[in-house]
């Protein structure tokens, strides 16, 4: 079977499984956590394009996610936009910010990119949590423009409650699943297409790729902008689903969780991020009893995987499969 055919079959099977979950386990907690898993999975598939396929060590992905989330919340809160209109607008704002970050990192390499993007995310976080100036005054208290340390609330939702009643949460579940399918199809198309070839060429041998006429300027900006769109959209959906946005989305522990998903699944592979997101999310649920040691476990898992299985589970599996096939024939 050809590679696109295989991708299609895997995708259809995964979607079919995911579509039956809310009917097999009609528990509110399961559905909420699965929706959260979809949101994280969107982010890691897009981050993997930058980090794995293009090999640019950007840590600004959660800042782009926050851009989408905050822009959606603010458009809903201050301009009374419907969230269905605010979400794509938030995603486009994330694209613009992604382009600016890409521009700032253009001449930098490896660790310089990592440090600069980390610093950008931290500055955004610090500016938000120290925001205390009154922007709107309600009867009881005053709200700063960015919501400050407590975040933004009451900016509306997707409006599925009027339509579906108590099943609105299942409606949101399918919106999340739909977004994930679109994001995944997009990232597969990019990674397997000519763009992905250009990204990998620049990653593997910058000098050679450039001498063959592949513009680093163009493709580095393209990869930042492309991955920012669905990341921003995931952030926008996060805001719409949980009906609140706070500065916790900048936290190091969330960054650690997402990075662990990519590394466990396999950096730079097509299906690795999805596999990693699912496994890490389930492991995280399983360890809810010993939640105090959650960060400890995640941190050690990340270090162990990098040390022992640097290709991640899917990378190692496909290598073993290739060896087994090779010896069989």
């Amino acid at each position: 079977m050809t590679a696109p055919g295989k991708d299609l079959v895997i995708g259809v099977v995964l979607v079919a499984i995911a579509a039956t979950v809310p009917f097999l386990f009609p528990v509110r907690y399961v559905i909420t956590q699965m929706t959260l898993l979809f949101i994280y999975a969107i982010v890691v598939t897009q981050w993997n394009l930058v980090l794995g396929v293009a090999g640019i060590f950007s840590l600004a992905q959660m800042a782009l996610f926050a851009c989408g989330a905050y822009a959606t919340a603010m458009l809903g809160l201050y301009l009374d936009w419907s969230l269905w209109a605010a979400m794509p607008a938030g995603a486009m704002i994330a694209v613009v910010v992604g382009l600016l970050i890409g521009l700032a990192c253009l001449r930098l390499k490896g660790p310089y990119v990592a440090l600069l993007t980390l610093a950008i995310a931290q500055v955004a976080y610090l500016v938000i949590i120290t925001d205390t100036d009154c922007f709107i005054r309600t009867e009881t208290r005053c709200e700063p423009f960015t919501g400050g340390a407590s975040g933004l609330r009451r900016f509306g939702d997707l409006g599925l409650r009027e339509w579906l009643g108590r099943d609105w949460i299942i409606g949101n579940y399918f919106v999340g699943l739909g977004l994930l399918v679109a994001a995944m199809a997009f990232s597969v198309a990019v990674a397997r297409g000519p763009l992905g070839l250009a990204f990998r060429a620049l990653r593997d041998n910058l000098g050679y790729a450039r001498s063959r006429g592949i513009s680093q300027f163009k493709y580095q900006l393209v990869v930042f902008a492309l991955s920012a769109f669905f990341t921003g959209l995931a952030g926008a959906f996060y805001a719409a689903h949980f009906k609140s946005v706070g500065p916790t989305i900048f936290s190091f522990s969330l960054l650690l969780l997402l990075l662990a998903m990519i590394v466990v699944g396999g950096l730079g592979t097509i299906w690795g991020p999805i596999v990693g997101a699912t496994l890490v999310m389930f492991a995280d649920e399983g360890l809810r009893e010993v939640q105090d040691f959650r960060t400890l476990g995640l941190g050690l898992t990340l270090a162990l995987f990098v040390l022992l299985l640097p290709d991640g589970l899917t990378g190692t599996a496909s290598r073993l499969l290739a060896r087994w096939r090779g010896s069989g024939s």
Partner: protein
Amino acid sequence: MEVIVQVIASGLTLGAMYAVAAVGLALVYGALGMLNIAHGAILTFGGYAAFYVITSLGLPMVAGVAAAVAAGALLGLAIYVVLVHGMLSAPAFETNIFIATFGIGMALENVVLKLFGAYPAAQPLALDGAVAVFDVFIPVRNIAILVAGVLLMVATAWLLTRTQTGNAIRATAQNRAAAELMGVRVRWIYAQVLAISGALAGVSGIMVSSLTNLSPTMGGDPMLKAFIVCVVAGLGNVYGAMIAAIALGLVEATAQYLLGVRFGLATLLVLVILTLIWRPHGLFGRTQVQRL
């Protein structure tokens, strides 16, 4: 006049603090090409080690400093033994060690949280009192930080230029293969560099916590500043890091005075981005010519 003295005094204090943290990072990057994200967690451990020895065991202050140095050095060594030794020859070392030390750093932070709790504690190893300079009262602990910072810088420079170990470290940083051929035991040098960097981080943990407080997440902010310092100076450039740390401390203090504390770091970052666009390898870094 008073304002200027105040800004310079707080800028120099910040600068000295950043310098101690940044030099450790620069040493490790220079020798191994490794960004140690666990540096902030080692710094936190150092601060808490001094706290534990002085408050809980009731030992004198000197023992507190020794405990911080020992804790930092041991953690640095542990990172070498557990991670670096196995990964050095594997492909994509630079990216992988970054991710691995990020994980270890978060894990260590969690350990501090479990051992000492989330509530901030006061650092017992701090001096009280103030000295008047041009009618401005400057706390003694700020002066102590500045003096300690300068002494540590001098000691590091002495170690690097005047001792056998320092020669070996510099040779390894310049050309690993050539150093190995000259009989330098490169892996042993790497272990030493990580231990020295850890010891420096331990001391800077005391400095940082004596100005603010001890808390499990206290390492994050000074580490971020130390990274900015190293990036501005050019990664791996130890002397550049010393100069850049003092300069950035002064810039941050000025920005905090003129624009408010909120925008100190933001201003710093804008300057850093502009610097990097102008010189992508940092102020003191050299463009590397690579063979294709």
